[in-house]
């Protein structure tokens, strides 16, 4: 069973599977376990998935989270893919899902997820991280907390440092 890091740096076992986008003309290859499917395909077959707590969605870094505006909380889990760790689009997608569309359930970083990006991910609203397999999960807790505070407001805090200083 794959491991996933939680926001507190703990390791949890998890059975969610990421279902990749099917080739043209092919249909989704649904597994037995809980599945994350491409967000647009979930939207297209929404009636079909209604009320299921074992179906979530994933966005790729070039996808537009706007397509799920108003629907996000119907999903138990949303994942955002980092095809390469240096592709920073996922951070914006996460903040939009949380701050603009009010998503409240689990938000997971998947793909090229490394240690040194975890704290940025946490600050942008991710609360679970599918750390790349070759990375040492025991170091995640430290990496999530390199900094005890940040200058900016983000998903994790409404209060930028300039407002904290004032009070």
């Amino acid at each position, binding site marked *: 069973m794959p491991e996933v890091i939680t926001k507190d740096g703990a390791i949890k076992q998890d059975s969610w599977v990421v279902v990749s986008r099917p080739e043209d003309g092919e249909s989704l290859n649904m597994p037995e376990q809980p599945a994350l499917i491409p967000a647009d395909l979930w939207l297209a077959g929404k009636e079909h998935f209604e009320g299921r707590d074992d179906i979530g969605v994933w966005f790729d870094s070039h996808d537009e989270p706007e397509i799920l505006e108003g629907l996000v909380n119907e999903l138990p889990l949303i994942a955002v893919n980092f095809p390469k760790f240096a*592709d920073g*689009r996922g951070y914006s997608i996460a903040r939009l899902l949380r701050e603009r569309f009010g998503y409240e359930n689990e938000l997971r970083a998947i793909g090229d997820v490394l240690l040194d990006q975890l704290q940025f991910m946490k600050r942008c609203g991710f609360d679970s991280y599918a750390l790349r397999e070759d990375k040492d999960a025991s170091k995640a807790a430290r990496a999530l907390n*390199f900094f005890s505070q*940040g*200058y900016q407001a983000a998903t994790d805090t409404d209060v930028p440092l300039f407002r904290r200083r004032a009070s």
Partner: protein
Amino acid sequence: MYVYDEHDRQIAAERVAQFRDQTERALAGELSEDEFLPLRLQNGLYVQRLAPMLRIAVPYGMLRSEQLRRLARVTRDYDKGYAHFTTRQNVQLNWPALEDVPDILAELAEVEMHANQTSGNCIRNTTTDQFSGVQVDEVADPRPYCEIIRQWSTFHPEFAFLPRKFKVAVNASEKTDRAAIQVHDIGLQMVRNDQGELGFRVHVGGGLGRTPMVGPVIREFLPELDLLTYLEAVLRVYNRYGRRDNKFKARIKILVKALTPEGFAEKVEAEWSHIKDSPTRLTREAIERIQGYFTEPAYDALENATELLASQRFDNRQFDQWLSHNVDSHKKPGYAIVTLTMKKTGTPPGDVSDTQLEQIAELAEQYSFGEVRVTHQQNVVLADVRQDQLFELWQSIEPMGFATANLNTLTDVICCPGGDYCALANAKSIPVAESIQRRFDDKDFLYDLGDIDLNISGCMNACGHHHVGNIGVLGVDKKGAEFYQVSLGGSSHHDATIGKILGPSFAQEDMPDVIAKIIDVYVDNRKEEEPFLETYRRIGIEPFKERVYA
């Protein structure tokens, strides 16, 4: 200038610990070279042709004496005893050892310095006019806003992995633009609206490099309290839609061009409408708190020392020349702004030794309230010198090599490190600067030519800002040999213009002659006091071409 509080100190200390951890993991092989690369770049660490190079941030160019002394010590203990002022108001060390970098950062953090985001695809050091706060005609002091941007952009969790590097510059004078804001990713011109409220005119998508562009205005007036939310909107649009498939098309200028400035502005406004009133919106108190760090020093109540200076000038011609070229007027009577030039012929532009750094620290304490500013022309400014002490100051800096009275003239060359130091270079740049400085060593002739910006870059990355030089020189590689392409008519000021390429490139040994011919055409054609750029604009590039390629 800004002083850290306990929050800044804590963040700085945590940053040093983080980078130490990252360096250890890299050295232990737990981080691959690819994975460590952006982490070290975001800490200003390049691996260069000869050794690593560490770029240390000098936020908007401001340095205190204790910081200069610490820099001197660091160059002595960890490097070869000299540092280099860059064209972006930062300082570079050319020879530190990778494993020493965490210790260097710890030493710097003690004096409130760091190397955060001095490289990499993130928001870089915000730059501004080196005469901020002391010039006569500024709308307001831009430095508090630069500090506000510095804090907002430091480890911003959403914008640490942008498509490409991102540079912001702020200018506050309506007449001059010493910060070259129109060739930055975001250029902020401080303005007042009809109601007298303070705000910014926002330029986006300027830049040099392979596709030089002057940044169009996307908002005529942005109220000051909206600064950060609006920047956040611009950055979010860029982060989401900027190209990531091709490094050469990844700067925001390409996105602005693709969407058109109007189209880009619309996207930003749409994004901004959602976050305009978010907690990131600045408060009056937050701005005032930062402004409190940039109050005027304890100036003496003085009169202008006009008569004294007149007699000193009369007695000493060199002092007279220095005063006319390297000293600018100050907003307070009895004070002056002095630029120490780091452009002595024979020394690479911007290079300073440890001893010189200490001398500058000393001078700052003695003559200018213990502060200096680094300029993007690679010089150092003492912003608050009493006029009645100018002569004494000049006498002491003359032997130190800081009084070369060539500020803004042809030999005050902006020059990148080029092939002598930089791994990306196509050609050397320092020897070209030097050969031109040697060719034009006649001061009277130089002064007669007036202000001419000569900018030299060793490759297309344009660290020497060659596109916006009145005369620009670019190192190019021609079948493995070093050649130089010349462009004319560039400007980085309010009339920002990208220079035009003169024609086929030249060998290094021909460069002084080529520049001399260009200057001859100017001298033959100029009308009275007409500066180089105006003559060029009037007569066009043809007469220059004819003479140079005759």
